[in-house]
């Protein structure tokens, strides 16, 4: 779907490039996560890929065609979900959606979407009366109103309660399962873990790592097995090499003679990987 080669971008007032030689591809029908600390260039990458920042260096191919060669019709097939509110606050949700729908050749059933995200009863309220969470959900509906093939989502569940967050994530997964492609930018590692087929970690304007969440965990996780067992009414623990524990006499002796309480491979979390790669805490 997208092939990005040696992408660099510098804001006019900056002395240094914000993006430096990024190369990655996003496949058809996958959810691709772009992760990294604030200010690292995730949003800039997304803005370049949505043609909001045209003066980039390098090459971006969209459906094997130079992104720069696309006109405004490019937007007929994409949906962009912003983190911040983007609607006319003195218009109702319905008036906003009706206005934007008329700009597209193809329209989704927005009533069904509003119903799904729990806004159908509020569709005739002015957006100014919406809470932050309602505005986030309306942004999401706005992103889908033209039946896009590609979705760019920036923190789509930020500020949502678990129930609404679950609804949004389910819709994103259904979108992917129906062949849609998603570029997801988020700080929420639970979302990444649940949604993303592949992730790219950015640091200092560059991509430091791209892989599936599972492979990253394997790569960055310690290959060990942790076991807790009971001995003399006390909880004991031991750690074994994941590749050799089956032949380890101590391990065999524990599982044969002790009461095992817990046993699990030592998996690292995406949070840990984030910190290791970017050197920054995820809540920054």
């Amino acid at each position, binding site marked *: 779907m997208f092939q990005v080669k040696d992408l660099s971008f510098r804001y006019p007032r900056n002395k240094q490039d914000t993006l430096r030689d990024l190369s990655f591809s996003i496949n058809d029908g996958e959810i691709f996560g772009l992760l990294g600390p604030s200010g690292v260039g995730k949003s800039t990458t997304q*803005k370049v890929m949505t043609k909001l920042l045209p*003066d980039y260096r390098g090459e971006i191919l969209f459906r094997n065609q130079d992104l720069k060669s696309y006109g405004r019709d*490019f937007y007929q097939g994409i949906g962009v979900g912003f983190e911040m509110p983007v*609607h006319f606050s003195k218009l109702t949700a319905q008036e906003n959606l009706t206005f934007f729908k008329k700009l597209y050749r193809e329209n989704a059933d927005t009533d069904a979407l509003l119903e799904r995200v729990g806004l159908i009863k509020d569709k005739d309220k002015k957006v100014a009366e919406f809470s932050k969470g309602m505005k986030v959900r309306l942004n999401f509906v*706005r992103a889908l109103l033209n039946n896009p093939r590609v979705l760019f989502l920036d923190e789509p569940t930020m500020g949502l309660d678990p129930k609404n967050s679950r609804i949004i994530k389910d819709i994103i997964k259904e979108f992917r399962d129906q062949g849609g492609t998603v570029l997801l930018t988020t700080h929420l590692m639970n979302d990444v873990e649940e949604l993303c087929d592949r992730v790219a970690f950015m640091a200092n304007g560059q991509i430091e790592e791209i892989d599936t969440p599972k492979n990253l965990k394997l790569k960055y996780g310690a290959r060990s097995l942790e076991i807790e067992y009971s001995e003399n009414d006390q909880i004991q623990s031991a750690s074994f090499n994941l590749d050799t524990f089956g032949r380890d006499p101590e391990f065999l002796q524990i599982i044969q003679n002790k009461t095992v309480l817990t046993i699990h491979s030592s998996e690292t979390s995406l949070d840990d990987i984030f910190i290791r790669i970017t050197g920054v805490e995820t809540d920054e």
Partner: protein
Amino acid sequence: MNNLPTLYLGELMRLRKYNILSASLFVAILWVGVIYFSEIQELSTIFPLLVFIDATSMAILLIGATMFFEREEGALKTLFISPITRSEYIWAKVSAGISSNLLTLLIIYTYARFFRELDLSFLGLVGAVILISGFHSLVGFLLSYRSRTFTDLLMSMFIYFLALALPVVLDLLGMIESKFLSNLLYLLPTKAAQVLLVGTAGVGETWEIIFSAAYLLILGGILYWFVIKRFTDFAARESGA
């Protein structure tokens, strides 16, 4: 796909919902009040001045106000990722601004026509307002591009009027005596606007009116080129650049 009608109707709806149209109508009523409280019976001299002030200042303000709200509410971002062209976006706003100015013209013309003496060509006024309002809407775009806040816009507008409109008004009131200075004013688009408006009362030479109309059209074309060209920079800046 032509999105201009949708954008134009959207602009009109927002002018109404954000009470910008109400403010514009309020100004029209103010002009009616000015006429009501003045003791001048024959309005053919003062009427073009009222229309001049309204068509220039309100055109800039309408563009500035709508863009200010779009910027404040983040709606510009979602418009930028919609399948609309720069020219559709600009023309929709210009057309909505002209419509509002024509509505004001209709209100004050109707009042003046029925309650005072007014001998002006209405069609001439309509044509003049379209040209003047269209030109100043484009000025409004350039000023809005430069302004970070609404106060910035008002300041830029104030400077524009001080430099370009005040000398024309002073000349209209006969306060500029130097012939050379008076002729120099023909370089100003505001002078062309004034010539067009007083021309509807039959004042001025035909060539002068044609020259002024052509001058505004040509300057408008150049201005439009700048507005379009700088729109990309504006969009990039609003997107974070």
